[in-house]
């Protein structure tokens, strides 16, 4: 029997996916803008962050209402809890995109280290793909796919460690590099954290599918 609840849940689900796609696109654009030294795009990303936050608030409000009015159980409950938990994480990924954009504007004009920027570019590609992938797994209810995020997150941890080491080397080699390399460090941190957030979402996708709460990212590496 089709219930009113199902229709509202379908709407909630659609809004969540829309927000997720928006954020996944934003993180990709912010890394690209950083590589292209594109201040205009960076500014756009900063300006649009508020819209992402608004979406989070709207989704949370709707979730609270649905819990209060329908007292959902079993898969219904898991789906709402998943959205409620994941939506905060998606919003934080949006904040990271904004922070990278702020760094993009900031770094302009300083001396730059091409080698490290290339590393950041590559890691950025991996991380934006992670965000897109985890949404695909959410949409297709793919617990196995979600679990595979653990491995990718590990690669990102190594790559950001590498950015960190290279940045420190560059600073040691030439004091002129300190300003740029500090930004590289920070951006490496944002990418690492975004990748951690993706594994959080992946954990909730697994919960939604199986009802089991798992830990996909037991890593101890703290970036900075």
């Amino acid at each position: 029997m089709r219930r009113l609840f199902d229709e509202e849940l379908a709407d909630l689900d659609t809004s969540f996916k829309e927000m997720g796609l928006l954020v996944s696109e934003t993180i990709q654009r912010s890394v690209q803008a950083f590589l292209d030294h594109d201040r205009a795009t960076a500014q756009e990303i900063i300006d649009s962050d508020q819209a992402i936050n608004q979406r989070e608030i709207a989704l949370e409000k709707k979730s609270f209402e649905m819990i209060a009015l329908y007292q959902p159980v079993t898969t219904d409950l898991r789906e709402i809890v998943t959205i409620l938990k994941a939506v905060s994480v998606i919003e934080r990924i949006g904040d990271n995109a904004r922070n990278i954009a702020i760094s993009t504007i900031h770094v302009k004009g300083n001396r730059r280290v091409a080698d490290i920027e290339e590393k950041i570019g590559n890691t950025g590609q991996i991380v934006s793909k992670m965000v897109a992938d985890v949404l695909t797994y959410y949409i297709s209810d793919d617990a196995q796919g979600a679990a595979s995020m653990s491995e990718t997150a590990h690669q990102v941890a190594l790559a950001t460690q590498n950015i960190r080491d290279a940045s420190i080397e560059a600073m040691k080699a030439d004091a002129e590099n300190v300003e740029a390399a500090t930004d590289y460090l920070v951006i490496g941190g944002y990418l690492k954290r975004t990748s951690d957030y993706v594994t959080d979402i992946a954990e909730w996708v697994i919960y939604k599918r199986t009802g089991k709460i798992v830990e996909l990212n037991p890593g101890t590496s703290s970036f900075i």
Partner: protein
Amino acid sequence: MAEKILVTENVRLYYGEKEALHGINLDYRKYGITALIGPSGSGKSTYLRALNRMHDLTDYVTVTGTFLLNGEDIYAPNMDTVQLRKQIGMVFQQPMPFPFSIYDNVAFGLRTDGVKDKAILDEKVESSLKAAAIWDEVKDDLHKSALSLSGGQQQRISIARALATSPEILLLDEPTSALDPVSANLVENTLIQLREQYTMIIVTHSMSQASRISDRTAFFNQGKLIEVNDTKKMFLNPDQQMTQDYISGRFG
């Protein structure tokens, strides 16, 4: 602001000397479902029954206050209660099919009203059964006794019977509490479909039913209206502590 279809002000009801409703003020906009909730003895059913003068026949009951249906005084001495109850229909807790066919049950109100034209009756019976979401289940058995149906079906027949006279308001007194969950669900779905075209006031003991189907919820306690608000607000963040305690199961 949507038009007010029913206004009740300072409603008091006495059983002999004893005051049981202590001045209820409640307005209803056109369309949608208002749920009346509250513990047993809170006065919600008593209040509901006052809306279409169901207490008239109980001689020790006195009702005072203002009751306006589209601006007209429901308790005016010249008000025809048969006419009134066509405008304000009622569905009870126990499904109450009359002991004759499904068709005759639904056509009952119309025939009382003097409608004899078979084509009109046929049309009205069909549209009412459809509106009550029971048509598909009974369309081939319209001349079977209504008593042969299940409780959930009987209740939807009762709703169809109330709808047949084209009421403006439908009063429902715990319409699903005698039904199993599946039948209750069917009746709830019927009500959800009807809420775009009818103004419904439902007394329910099921908090989850009130939250699922109503647009507005009124909480009664000890003959008083404690709070009325949008259902969303009532179930997320009511103004009154007492409402909060009742809805979250701390008393009642």
